[in-house]
C-alpha cells in the first residue's frame, strides 16, 4: 500500500485490475485504492507476471503492506509474503525484502505496491503475546483512545491477528482503565454531542448513551462513533467489518478528506518553521505575449497564465536546489529534477496537490497539457499513485479567487511552496511614469531549516525575471 501523502496511514483496496498469471509492464495500473482524499489508481513499477494478490478487495491495510507479488521473467515459483506484520512507520517504510530498487525520487516513501522478491522470504512470526503485539496504526489509535493496554490484547483474527473486536472487547473488560475520571457528561444534553454525531447515530440505529467523546467538554463527535461502536453499513459482499473503512456515503468522504487535510496541515505547521517572502511582479509583457499566442490558436491549444507560472517556477527551481527537495530525518535532500506539485481545488471542497514529474523538462505547451490533464483527473477521478508522490516543490495559484496574496502552508516533506494571487491591473511605475500594468503578487513559503531568506529572495527574483521574458520560457 503506497504512501500517497504525508498524512496517509492506511488505504482501502477497492478493485484489482489484474489477476495472478497476468503480464504487467512498468507503469500499468493494477489496482484502485481508496484513501481519505481520493480514489487513486496504483501503478506497478516492475514488469513481469502477477504472482499472488495479497490483499483482497474491500480490505483496508496500513501503508507499507505488500499488495501483490510480481514475478520477474526468470522466477520459477512465487514467493509468498506474510502480510500480518504491519509497518509501524506511517511514512511507509517496508521490510527491506519487499522493496524494489530504491526510487529515484528522494524523500519518496517506497511504493510497495509491487515488491519483487529478492530471494527466499521467511514468513514473519506472529507476535500476539505480551511483548509488543502487532497493531496497525488504525487499531493502535483505537486502543489509545479506549485506554486499552495493547500488550494485554489477544488476537482472535486469522493467524492470531488482533482485530477491532478484540480491542473493543478489551476496552469493555473490567480490567481496562476508564478513559476519564468522574461521571461522564450525558451526551443527550444539548451541546454534548455534535449534530453530525447525532445524525450518524440515528442513521445507524445507535443510541447515544452516556459516553465521553473527544469534542469540547467531552462532547461526542462523529470521529468517536466511527472509531468505536458504530455498526458498519450492510456490506453486500460480507467482508470483515473491522477491515472496512466505511467511506461510501458522500458525507463520510468529505469528513475523511478534511481529516486527511487536517493531519497534513497540522503536521506542516507543527514541524516546519516557515518563513515568508513576497514580491509583486509586472506581468504585462507576459499577458500580452500570451494574448498574441492564444489569438492564433483554437481553444484546445491555448495557454493559461497558470502554465506560465508553473513553467517559470520549474525552471527557477533547477537553479535553487536548496528549495527543491525534501526534509526528512533531520536533514535536507536536494532532488535531481523538479517534480512540481500543483495545488488543485476539488469541486465542492477539498484539496489535492498532484505532481508533474520532471517539470523542469517540459515546454510551455507540455506544461499546459499536463495541467489540464491533472485538473481533469483531480476533479473527475483517475489520478495515479505516482502522481501523488515524489513532489519536490509546489505552486499554489489562487488567482481565480481574486485574492491578492497567498501565504502558503508547505506540504511536508517538501521545503518550499510558491504562492500566486490574482493577475490584476495595478498602478505601477514603468519607465519613470505611473501606468496601469497587470501584476501578480508572488510569495514564497520556505522551510527555514533548509534555506534562509536571502536565498528565498533570490529565488523569487529569478521567477519574476523569467516571467518578464515569456518567450524564453
Amino acid at each position: 500500500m503506497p504512501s500517497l501523502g504525508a498524512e496517509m496511514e492506511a488505504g482501502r483496496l477497492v478493485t484489482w485490475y489484474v489477476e495472478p498469471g497476468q503480464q504487467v509492464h512498468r507503469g500499468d495500473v493494477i489496482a484502485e485504492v481508496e484513501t481519505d482524499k481520493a480514489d487513486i489508481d496504483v501503478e506497478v513499477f516492475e514488469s513481469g507476471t502477477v504472482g499472488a494478490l495479497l490483499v483482497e478487495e474491500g480490505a483496508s491495510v496500513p501503508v507499507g503492506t505488500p499488495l501483490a507479488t510480481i514475478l520477474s521473467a526468470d522466477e520459477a515459483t512465487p514467493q509468498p509474503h506474510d502480510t500480518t506484520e504491519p509497518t509501524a512507520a506511517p511514512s511507509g517504510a517496508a521490510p527491506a525484502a519487499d522493496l524494489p530498487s530504491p526510487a529515484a525520487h528522494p524523500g519518496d516513501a517506497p511504493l510497495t505496491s509491487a515488491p519483487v522478491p529478492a530471494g527466499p522470504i521467511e514468513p514473519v512470526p506472529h507476535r500476539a503475546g505480551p511483548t509488543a503485539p502487532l497493531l496497525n496504526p488504525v487499531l493502535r489509535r483505537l486502543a489509545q483512545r479506549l485506554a486499552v493496554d495493547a500488550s494485554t490484547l489477544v488476537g482472535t483474527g486469522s493467524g492470531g491477528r488482533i482485530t477491532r473486536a478484540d480491542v473493543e472487547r478489551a476496552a469493555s473488560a473490567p480490567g481496562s482503565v476508564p478513559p476519564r475520571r468522574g461521571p461522564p457528561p450525558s451526551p443527550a444534553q444539548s451541546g454534548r454531542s455534535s449534530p453530525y454525531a447525532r445524525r450518524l447515530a440515528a442513521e445507524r440505529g445507535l443510541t447515544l448513551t452516556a459516553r465521553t467523546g473527544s469534542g469540547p467538554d467531552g462532547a461526542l463527535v462523529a470521529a468517536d462513533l466511527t472509531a468505536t461502536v458504530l455498526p458498519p453499513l450492510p456490506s453486500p459482499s460480507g467482508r470483515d467489518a473491522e477491515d472496512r473503512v466505511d467511506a461510501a456515503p458522500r458525507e463520510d468522504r468529505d469528513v475523511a478528506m478534511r481529516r486527511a487535510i487536517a493531519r497534513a496541515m497540522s503536521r506542516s505547521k507543527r514541524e516546519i518553521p516557515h518563513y515568508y517572502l513576497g514580491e509583486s511582479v509586472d506581468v504585462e509583457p507576459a499577458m500580452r505575449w500570451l494574448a498574441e499566442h492564444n489569438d492564433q490558436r483554437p481553444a484546445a491549444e491555448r495557454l493559461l497564465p497558470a502554465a506560465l507560472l508553473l513553467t517559470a517556477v520549474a525552471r527557477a527551481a533547477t537553479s535553487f536546489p536548496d528549495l527543491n527537495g525534501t526534509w526528512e530525518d533531520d536533514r535536507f535532500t536536494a532532488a535531481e529534477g523538479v517534480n512540481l506539485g500543483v495545488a488543485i481545488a476539488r469541486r465542492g471542497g477539498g484539496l489535492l496537490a498532484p505532481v508533474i514529474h520532471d517539470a523542469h523538462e517540459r515546454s510551455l505547451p507540455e506544461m499546459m497539457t499536463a495541467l489540464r490533464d491533472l485538473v481533469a483527473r483531480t476533479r473527475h477521478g483517475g489520478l495515479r499513485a505516482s502522481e501523488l508522490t515524489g513532489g519536490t516543490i509546489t505552486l499554489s495559484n489562487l488567482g481565480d479567487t481574486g485574492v491578492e496574496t497567498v501565504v502558503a502552508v508547505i506540504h511536508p516533506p517538501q521545503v518550499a511552496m510558491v504562492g500566486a494571487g490574482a493577475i490584476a491591473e495595478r498602478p505601477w511605475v514603468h519607465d519613470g511614469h505611473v501606468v496601469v500594468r497587470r501584476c501578480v503578487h508572488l510569495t514564497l513559503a520556505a522551510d527555514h531549516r533548509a534555506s534562509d531568506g536571502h536565498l528565498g529572495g533570490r529565488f523569487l527574483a529569478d521567477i519574476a525575471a523569467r516571467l518578464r521574458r515569456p518567450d524564453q520560457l
Partner: protein
Amino acid sequence: MNSQDIREVVIGLLRDIAPEMDPASLDPHADLRDELDLDSMDTLNLVAGVERELHVTVPERDYPQLRTLDAVVGYVQAQRPPAS
C-alpha cells in the same frame, strides 16, 4: 441547429465540468462563473467544448460575452449560419 439544440449541447458541456449541476435549476441569466464556481481552466474547457461541438471559433477577447447560459447560446447562434 436551433437555439434549443445549442442550449442542450452547452448544458451538456457544463455538466461535464460541473457534474453536480442540476440542469433544471440552472438560471439561464445567472453568471456561470459564480453559479457553477468555474475557474479559468473550466472556462477554457467550456470554450474548447463550444468550439469543438458547435463548430464556432471563440477568440479570447470574446470570453466576457459568455457570461450566462443565454449569452453563450446567443453568441453561438450569431456565429452560425441560420438553420435551414
